């Protein structure tokens, strides 16, 4: 027995040093910038120059992408399913509209206030999603979304009811950049917010906090047994996601100068889930890839078949689910090695 022990110790000593240096390398590789990340941002900037007539749809993509990336933080990391994420999107949209209408026309101020308001709503509603299974969470979040929509509808004195809010124009961004008729400023504005938001969430993703979220999703019981306070972490993640969803809503208001009850409609919650199904969850960029594909497919279908495009979106969803959600969630891994390398140590 002691011989075995000695051998183990000798082996351990010689291998510990190399293990340590390898571990440091692997850990660093985890959070390094992937090839596809560079490509996506370069393409986004290039689109500004190459497609000057497509600013509106590019803006739409950027807003949907931010919305989807924020949902990925709760769905793809903490594993919390939500059918009511648009509650935060819609609240942000209304707050930004009310800010521009009554208080400050400067958009960044409205953006921040909208984010904070959505975050507060996220913080309070997060306690409702701590209990129960996926199904109860779906129902609870769906309920929160529907209640928000009805509140907006009923408080017509504030929200304009079914007519929505209009008659406001956002001022120059930071007092410097005027919104133009072609939406060029609007696109750059949304792209910058998307970039900053994604970078912040990316940092969170590779922090111990982000890892602990994935641990909760992977195995909640074991996460508890390595001292992860799951409820606290979920509350924080949900609140952060709500902040960015609210900001996405604010961007929509500010780039369209209009808020309608549609920002709280159920289909937005469903759309953003579909975006993540298409793009894949758990690596943030799925929200961006998904938003691009979803918006382009929707746009293309609504041109060729204006009346039945929703049928084809539904068909697409059915096909995607048949192919298998798990395989979809990992499609990045099927990209050539140099493009992907999501996992370490290969």
């Amino acid at each position, binding site marked *: 027995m002691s011989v075995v022990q000695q051998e183990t110790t000798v082996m351990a000593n010689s291998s510990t040093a190399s293990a340590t240096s390898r571990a440091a390398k692997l850990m660093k590789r985890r959070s390094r910038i992937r090839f596809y990340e560079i490509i996506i941002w370069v393409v986004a900037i290039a689109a500004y120059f190459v497609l000057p007539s497509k600013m509106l749809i590019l803006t739409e993509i950027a807003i949907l992408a931010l919305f989807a990336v924020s949902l990925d933080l709760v769905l793809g990391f903490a594993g919390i399913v939500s059918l009511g994420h648009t509650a935060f999107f819609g609240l942000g949209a209304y707050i930004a509209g009310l800010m521009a209408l009554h208080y400050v026309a400067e958009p960044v101020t409205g953006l921040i206030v909208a984010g904070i308001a959505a975050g507060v709503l996220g913080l309070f509603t997060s306690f409702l999603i701590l209990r129960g299974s996926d199904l109860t969470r779906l129902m609870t979040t769906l309920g929160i979304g529907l209640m928000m929509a009805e509140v907006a509808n009923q408080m017509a004195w504030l929200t304009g009811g079914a007519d929505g809010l209009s008659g406001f124009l956002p001022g120059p961004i930071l007092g410097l950049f005027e919104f133009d008729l072609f939406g060029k400023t609007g696109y750059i504005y949304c792209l910058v917010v998307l970039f900053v938001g994604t970078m912040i969430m990316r940092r969170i993703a590779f922090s111990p906090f982000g890892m602990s979220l994935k641990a909760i999703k992977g195995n909640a019981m074991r996460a508890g047994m390595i001292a*992860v306070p799951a409820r606290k972490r979920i509350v924080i993640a949900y609140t952060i996601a709500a902040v960015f969803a609210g900001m996405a809503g604010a961007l929509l208001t500010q780039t369209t100068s209009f808020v309608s009850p549609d920002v709280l409609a159920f289909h937005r919650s469903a759309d953003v889930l579909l975006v993540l199904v298409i793009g894949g969850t758990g690596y943030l960029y799925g929200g961006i890839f998904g938003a691009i594909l979803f918006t382009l497919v929707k746009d293309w279908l609504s041109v060729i078949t204006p009346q039945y495009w929703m049928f084809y979106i539904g068909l697409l969803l059915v096909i995607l689910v048949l192919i298998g959600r798990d395989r979809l969630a990992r499609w990045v891994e099927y990209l050539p090695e140099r493009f992907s390398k999501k996992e370490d140590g290969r």
Partner: protein
Amino acid sequence: MSDIVLETRNLKRRFGAFLATNDVSLKVERGARHALIGPNGAGKTTLINLLTGVLPPSEGQVFLEGEDITSLASFRRVKRGLTRTFQINQLFSDFTPLETVALAIAEREGAGHNLWKSMAGYDKVVDEAAALLARFGLASVMGERTVILPYGKQRLLEIALAFASKPRVLLLDEPAAGVPEDERHEVLSIVSALPADVTVLLIEHDMDLVFSFANRISVLVAGALFTEGTVAEISADPRVKAVYLGENA
């Protein structure tokens, strides 16, 4: 007898009409190598679940270092130094062993709340994780996804993960189950090498392992404590043999 680390008082757990844990009052001394044995279905794993907060008891209390922890969540018990391994691996299948162990160490060090600093920036955590993995012979696979590892390696990771929390009381639920024969003693020798003030409660079916490892044995039958004693007492007890043989016959 005075220094009791872990204690249960009249612990009961019902599943419907079935009494899985029947009035168990167990005392575990500091630094003990205490084994919990009993035939299949005796309620050993249920007892561990009650001790670690995976299940709430129907009645009774659990004390750690004299404090009532009956209503504490698992993660709070781990923070107080009580952790466990699972009979059936409970790992994070998408994580690599390195990520798994590093997260446990980061949580132990209170770094888990940090959402701004990259895990790679915690040099000490990463170094410690690497050293721990090397000790368990997992250094070569530290960058692979856990789900693709052979079962034996996953088993070692299961135990390494409990070590990462640096427990003062460690509950091992059949740690050797599924570990290849030649690595079993390696596992137990690592456990034996724990500091003397770390208390270990071991559930194990392999009697050779139990008798070579434990200094005190409790026998659980049908959810209740059947008898308790030293290795010599238990191995000589004809009633214990009868319980085991009766089950096998």
